[in-house]
């Protein structure tokens, strides 16, 4: 540590989040290093791997510092040119820069790009700026100062007071005030000589959300630091991070971070000479959705079947090994150090009256800028979708957005001005939940969407309680029936009854929220259900069993000259016609697989 820091004139920040890694970010890094060596720039240019940048849509990504120049969708082929032009000769390469849709000129600087411009980074404060595998870089960015402050200058009560004042609420979805929870745990009696536990919930069950993974990958130390502060506040000496095993990169970076922190004495005995002891163990989950539920997670952590149990007692009172346990989500923990170092007042100045600070959303679906965004609470859906997300691709119309993951709800376009916070989302029938945002355009069938999400929750139900186990199965079968055109009017009544009853009587959050997609789609898109049942039609033409495929003979002959492709691809010989002549679908034989529609190059196959 005594040697002087080596001076480089350029730092190339290669994004190595899971998204970019799967887009071959490591090959890009390799190519860069090779090329830099070739140009003898290795003493001038440093290649750094960072955590997820957030703009995953455009991966693999590279940001050049200083200058904040943003390169995107790189391939190995681009590298020699890029190195020579920009890093050697100082001429940034425009064609590798981001050009917003519908525009022609690329935007060279990251902060000028809309996707980044609208974001406020707290939980993701270090993204793209540090190498998550180097603790020094985290420390350089004021890392562990909050912890030092909390351990040496603050009392547990003081920490709790600060968190309470900040208005931080659990980012796991339910939004329980974090400070209040900590206070509960602090005051709850332990039956085992004062032992209390602290758990970080990294079991991100929603397949469409990935902010927890991203934080663990990009900035594991922020979570560790948050946990140490929390431990001091509640009086715990042992903590656990529950991470699903499907996150190998997150696991390895977290484990590395823990090792480094331990080596530096930032974990373990007598942290920073404060006399405070705390250490963290990593527990790998097997990836059950229900294990994101806190009681199920604790069961799993204890080595038992990952099943929820009724609350109360809450984990704060009787959690892991029956001792008071504080469970917070990854993102919550990542927020904690910033609150401690910058103060509750600063934090609570961001956001709305009830929901303070920022929230990370994973923006996916029919949207131009897929990725991870951190925005202040209270920002409208519209801003997220159109300003940051860049709107809907191919100029299609926005229809709805599913927030909160598979058990969240669909919010229709009428509510696009809805300011996003915990309360408003719940009011709209959805929830903050996982922070997932699935954007849907006009081509989406809402009945099918409900069916899709339900098939997920049904599959992930642990099966302990009757409503969730049997109810999701029953709802799924009704929805499947409707999408197949076999629905009756009675089905809608039964579906609503079921949904309400399950929401009301299921054991845990998973069951309580599983009907949300059904309930919200029924609330906002009832006419689509009715069309499916009464007219046996799917307006979005997604439910193939309700489609009628016909060949427009005119187009077929005129444009396609009876190319015969549809006939050759039809599995049931339902298409008649000879090459060069008009083709025709025999409806009795058609199984509505849609292959003819997909293969026709001349749009001659139509759906009615």
């Amino acid at each position, binding site marked *: 540590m005594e040697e*002087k820091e080596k001076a480089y004139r350029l730092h190339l920040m290669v994004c190595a989040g899971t998204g970019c890694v799967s887009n071959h970010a490591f090959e890009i890094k390799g190519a860069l290093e090779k090329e830099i060596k070739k140009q003898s720039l290795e003493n001038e240019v440093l290649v750094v791997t960072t955590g997820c940048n957030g703009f995953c849509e455009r991966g693999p990504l590279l940001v050049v510092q*200083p200058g904040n120049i943003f390169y995107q969708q790189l391939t190995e082929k681009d590298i020699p040119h890029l190195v020579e032009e920009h890093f050697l000769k100082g001429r940034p390469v425009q064609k590798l820069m981001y050009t917003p849709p519908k525009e022609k000129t690329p935007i060279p600087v990251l902060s000028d790009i809309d996707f980044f411009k609208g974001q406020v980074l707290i939980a993701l404060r270090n993204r793209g700026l540090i190498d998550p595998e180097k603790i020094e870089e985290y420390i350089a960015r004021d890392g562990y100062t909050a912890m030092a402050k909390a351990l040496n200058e603050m009392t547990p009560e003081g920490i709790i007071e600060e968190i309470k004042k900040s208005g931080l609420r659990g980012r796991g979805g339910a939004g329980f005030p974090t400070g209040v929870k900590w206070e509960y745990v602090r005051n709850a009696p332990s039956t085992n000589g004062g032992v209390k536990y602290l758990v970080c919930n990294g079991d991100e069950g929603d397949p469409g959300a990935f902010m927890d993974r991203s934080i663990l990958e990009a900035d594991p130390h922020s979570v560790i630091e948050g946990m140490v502060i929390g431990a001091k506040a509640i009086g715990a000496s042992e903590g656990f991070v529950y991470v699903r095993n499907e996150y190998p990169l997150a696991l390895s970076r977290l484990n590395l971070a823990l090792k480094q922190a331990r080596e530096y004495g930032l974990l373990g005995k007598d942290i920073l000479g404060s006399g405070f002891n705390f250490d963290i163990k990593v527990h790998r989950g097997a990836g059950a959705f229900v294990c994101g539920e806190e009681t199920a997670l604790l069961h799993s952590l204890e080595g038992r079947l990952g099943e929820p149990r009724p609350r109360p007692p809450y984990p704060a009172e009787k959690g892991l090994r029956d001792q008071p346990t504080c469970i917070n989500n990854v993102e919550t923990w990542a927020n904690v150090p910033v609150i401690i170092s910058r103060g509750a007042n600063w934090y609570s100045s961001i956001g709305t009256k009830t929901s303070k600070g920022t929230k990370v959303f994973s923006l996916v679906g029919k949207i131009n800028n897929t990725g991870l965004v951190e925005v202040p609470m209270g920002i409208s859906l519209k801003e997220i979708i159109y300003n940051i997300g860049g709107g809907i691709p191919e100029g299609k119309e926005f229809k709805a957005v599913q927030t909160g993951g598979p058990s969240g709800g669909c919010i229709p376009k009428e509510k696009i001005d809805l300011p996003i916070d915990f309360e408003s989302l719940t009011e709209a029938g959805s929830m903050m939940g996982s922070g997932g945002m699935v954007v849907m355009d006009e081509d989406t069938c809402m009945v099918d969407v409900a069916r899709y999400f339900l098939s997920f929750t049904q599959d992930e139900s642990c099966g302990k309680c009757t409503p969730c186990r049997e109810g999701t199965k029953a709802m799924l079968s009704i929805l499947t029936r409707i999408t197949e055109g076999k629905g009756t009017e009675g089905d809608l009544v039964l579906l609503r009854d079921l949904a309400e009853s399950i929401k009301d009587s299921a054991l845990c959050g998973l069951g309580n929220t599983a009907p949300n997609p059904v309930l919200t789609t029924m609330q906002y898109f009832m006419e689509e259900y009715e069309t499916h049942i009464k007219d046996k039609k799917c307006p979005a033409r997604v439910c193939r069993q309700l489609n009628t495929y016909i060949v427009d003979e005119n187009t077929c002959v005129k444009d396609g000259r009876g190319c015969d492709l549809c006939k050759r691809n039809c599995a049931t010989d339902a298409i008649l016609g000879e090459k060069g002549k008009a083709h025709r679908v025999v409806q009795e034989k058609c199984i509505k697989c849609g292959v003819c529609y997909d293969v026709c190059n001349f749009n001659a196959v139509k759906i009615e």
Partner: protein
Amino acid sequence: MPKLTVEDLKKIREKTRRTTMLREGGEHRAKITVHMGTCGIASGARDIMNALIKEIEARDITDVILTNSGCAGLCSREPMATVEMAGKAPVKYVDLTAEKIKEVLEKHVLGGKIVESYALGIGSEKTDLS
């Protein structure tokens, strides 16, 4: 590995300040741009750059940004470099050698006094993208 103290945390931060400054565009005293078009490289811009890097490292200067750019247009006077002191107009130096640029670094960047004998002029076209 010895256990850290709060003081050690500060030391680590000090040590890495150059990185922080570089990546986050933090406060810097000066920015030196070496012009490295084909002409510049051909007339020895790499030497200038290397000399600068070595010198900055040796003096442990953490608040000077070192960057490069393409051809500055005055190929006959290469190698060239532009020094921009924070809040001041850029100064372009021409016909540089490793020795000369060290002098510039010493007198101009650290001492605040323009080395007029090598300077082409003060104020020029905008060279910085940001």
